[in-house]
């Protein structure tokens, strides 16, 4: 098999998504968790564009991906604001310390 098939892109996306899962579960820093979420969103976007391209349509996947990018930007802005608030409240950036609502 020569050339790039859709499986190349899907495997790349799977690797990137697994890396995002690794970052989310490994990091204790709340901002590190955010980095992991961004990695996962990028992996999903690669899938969208790859499928769109391999179905012979350039536009729809790109439009969906643009919406995802827009949502990611909105999510990052709100998440950083929440993290800053919680940081001022708990005096810690580690997600392990945010246990006030437990029990």
């Amino acid at each position, binding site marked *: 098999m020569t050339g790039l098939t859709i499986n190349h892109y899907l495997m790349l996306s799977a690797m990137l998504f697994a890396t*995002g899962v690794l970052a989310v579960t490994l990091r204790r820093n709340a901002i590190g968790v955010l980095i992991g979420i*961004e990695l996962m969103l990028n992996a999903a976007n690669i899938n969208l564009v790859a499928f769109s391209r391999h179905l012979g349509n350039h536009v729809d996947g790109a439009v969906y991906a643009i919406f995802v990018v827009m949502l990611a930007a909105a999510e990052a802005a709100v998440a950083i604001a929440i993290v800053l608030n919680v940081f001022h409240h708990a005096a810690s950036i580690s997600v392990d310390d945010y246990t006030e609502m437990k029990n």
Partner: protein
Amino acid sequence: METGIGIQLAFFAFAALTVGSALFAATAKSIVHAAFSLMATFFGVAGIYAILGSDFLAVTQVLVYVGGILILIVFGVLLTDRVPHEYKVAKPRNYLPAMIAAGLVFVALAGAVMSAKWPKLVKGELPAATTTVEAIGRSLLTDYLIPFEFASILLLVVLVGAARLARGGARK
């Protein structure tokens, strides 16, 4: 599907850049190093988009992710850097469970990709990549008009909400 050897080399180079820098971003001890490594990841993904023929999306990726989200993340690091020792995630306690979780996710996804038979994919030559800007603009204002308007409302709400949240208790 035939693709030139140059394109293939570019794909593998961008894929290696993406995955390598993402792994570093996930595991780097310093969160600042992770954030800068994330920049390389975003550029790698933009390269992948370019190879896939989505020129507009590649530029958007660089503008929004590198120019916006990464700056937000770095600002977040900056503003929460009052307890330096907590910053170094020197010994992640949950290294093993995290590796297992990520490994399982990867095995599941890779197994699904490898075992799937994609039906009805375009046989033979894909249509040549052309510029997508005009088509994207048209479809945003026709087929995707409602989501587009909702997106603008969402952005307005997020703008106000994030500002309100970030000001914290100032208005109480």
